[in-house]
């Protein structure tokens, strides 16, 4: 027993259909393979294939193995289309908190594809969905983020949704947020909202360049 001498030969790999060059239909079949390893590899290989979006989304809803689910979500993030975002957005209604969180994290990385969908999510009937949408905005690299958040603060009827937006505006808000913060404090006669609005206003005022 020791450090093995190099052989110069490739080590024989276990048989794996995804190890061979496969067309996309064959990869789609592998997405339903009983072996999680094969499903995971098929999901990874479909990342370069936009036509696989619906296959991946369908499998995502059925998949029970966390690592396969992770890879499906990563491939959808790489595909990065509005169709992929719309599919991930349906996961926000899932009972499984891990799936919801994974979908939120993925959508944060798809700012351009996310833009047409975020407005729908911010208008959803369910306040929990609207809070998840605000959570996505927290680190979405898109120039409209502040406007979307201010729109929530001005118009959303749910104090919980508004507080979620307010927390972020407190960190990233600029001068255009000042009138909205004042209106929000008046609209909700609530001690926490008043405190958070005052704090955000002070932070924005403090960050003004000295004239």
């Amino acid at each position: 027993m020791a450090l093995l001498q190099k052989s110069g030969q490739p080590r024989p790999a276990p048989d794996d259909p995804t190890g061979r060059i496969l067309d996309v239909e064959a990869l789609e079949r592998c997405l339903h393979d009983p072996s999680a390893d094969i499903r995971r590899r098929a999901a990874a290989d479909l990342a370069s294939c936009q036509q696989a979006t619906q296959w991946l989304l369908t499998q995502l809803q059925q998949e029970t193995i966390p690592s396969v689910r992770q890879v499906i979500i990563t491939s959808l993030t790489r595909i990065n289309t509005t169709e992929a975002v719309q599919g991930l957005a349906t996961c926000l209604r899932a009972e499984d908190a891990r799936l919801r969180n994974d979908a939120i994290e993925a959508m944060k990385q798809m700012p351009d594809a996310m833009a047409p969908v975020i407005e729908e999510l911010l208008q959803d009937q369910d306040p929990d969905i609207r809070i998840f949408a605000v959570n996505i905005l927290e680190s979405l690299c898109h120039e409209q983020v502040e406007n979307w958040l201010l729109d929530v603060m001005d118009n959303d009827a749910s104090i919980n949704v508004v507080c979620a937006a307010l927390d972020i505006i407190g960190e990233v808000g600029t001068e255009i947020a000042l009138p909205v913060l004042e209106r929000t404090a008046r609209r909700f006669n609530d001690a926490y909202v008043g405190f958070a609005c005052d704090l955000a206003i002070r932070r924005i005022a403090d960050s003004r360049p000295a004239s």
Partner: protein
Amino acid sequence: MTAIISQDDFLVFREYFYRKTGIRFESSKRYFVDKRLIDRITANDCASFREYFTRLRFQANGEELQRLTNLLTVNETYFMREEYQFDCLTSHILPELSEHLPTDKIINIWCIPSSSGEEPYSIAMQLLENWPMLRNRDVRLLASDINTRMLDMAEEGLYSERSIRNVPPTWRARYFSRVGDMYQICDELRACVEFSHVNLANPVEVRRQHAIDVVFCRNLLIYFDDLSRKEAAESLYDVMSPGGFICLGHSESMGRISPLFTVRKFPEAIVYQKPWEES
């Protein structure tokens, strides 16, 4: 005439190189990238970036892309860098794996990136010097890099005084011989590290490895963006054995990359483990 790289050229090239390697150059690296691009444009007798870029993209054998990759991925390292992880390897990781694995199972250790070989040879010395259980267990040392020039240097095993500055004197005497003002790693060690070309951003290339028990992937993922980092972590997960460990660089954290691995805190280092079973 020296070619000029415009801002648009830089952005086009940056996106292409990112898709090929997962490595994204920030604007602050513009000078570094431009200089190497201009060198290759000149060496290829191209009149412009555009002419060179077309050649780079469509050359069937990919030779020019590999040359350019070699120039853009040079990272200096040295023996026994972040050696606390090597202590962790022999004090905790390998004993734990040995306890769980069948006695005849070969333990596969993979360094990616290997750079010019300092890390895998350091691990080889660490095992020979500090892991007595090596008498009862076979270990295979694998090492890969995207940079073929680095791989050639690793195979050659010739190092400067600066590179071996952290190697203890007794180890130097045992494993190196002086060649002019350089140090040659001994044949015994060179014979037991299997070097290969692998691009971590290409899952098909990564899958040439399998049943890996310990991965050293240090100070590479910092050059990737978030999504490429996650894809790389998933590729590594894919080729690791259940219960396998992954060691990252000291400034890297798997917690910010992927939830697939479990954090393991040992006295010497924090490392990450693929679960023995997936629920």
